């Protein structure tokens, strides 16, 4: 019960953070990825804030809560190709998985379409390319 409440709180903090950060606005994300014209640096501040809190918290608390160690695998072809394909989709729609799911909270038809085909892409990667083993 306590774990469930903590997980719900963790998700809610994440969702509020995404919305407040402006990353649930696809134009702001594309504005960061678009180096021509008026560049929007907001995304870098979002990453910076998230890394600051998560990174320092992780290193301060990892022993106390026996948190998992970083498990850096080899830089595989799957990692490289997967990251390239993800980046292409990210630039195309201005959505990565978190903001797209968060925008379901305002009943955005774009987010709904995106999340539906995202699920299809996930299933293809898992069933056909044996990802997520």
């Amino acid at each position: 019960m306590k774990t469930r409440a903590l997980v719900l709180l963790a998700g809610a903090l994440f969702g509020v953070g995404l919305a407040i950060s402006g990353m649930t606005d696809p134009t702001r994300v594309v504005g960061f990825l678009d180096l021509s014209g008026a560049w929007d640096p907001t995304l870098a501040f979002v990453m910076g804030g998230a890394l600051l809190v998560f990174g320092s918290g992780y290193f301060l608390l990892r022993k106390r809560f026996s948190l998992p160690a970083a498990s850096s695998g080899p830089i595989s072809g799957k990692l490289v190709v997967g990251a390239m394909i993800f980046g292409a989709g990210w630039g195309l729609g201005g959505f990565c998985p978190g903001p797209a799911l968060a925008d379901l909270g305002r009943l955005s038809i774009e987010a709904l379409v995106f999340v539906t085909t995202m699920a299809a892409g996930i299933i293809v990667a898992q069933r056909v390319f044996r990802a997520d083993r």
Partner: protein
Amino acid sequence: MVPSFLYGFLGGCLIGLGSLLGLIATGKIPGISGVFGRLFRPKPGDSWWRVIFLLGLIAGAAAAFQFSEHAAIFRIPPGRSLLIFAVAGLLVGFGTRLGGGCTSGHGVCGMGMGARDSLVATMIFMAAGFVTVAAFRILL
């Protein structure tokens, strides 16, 4: 008038806090593509926390959209039809699972834990994002 980068930094801190709390509560790295994606490859007893986390995420965002004018901003980037969003979703779903993570899994959690492969993945998907937006702008 609070500048948008301060909203970004504050929101980023909350994203980091939510990720940290999720890691502590479950012992699993709460990257969103993995939290969502592994619902389609379920293991016994491993789905409940994913559903609760994602419901919290959607509810938290929905509340923020109501209470913050800044959070309420939602603009479709130029030239993005629903078909473009459909293709983008397919690529993001496939790419994040093949590459083992997204902006949160690799970009926040993996890099924050000091994983070298997450640093490499983040540099690659960032670069691919810049190239794609530039190409889309030219083709538009």
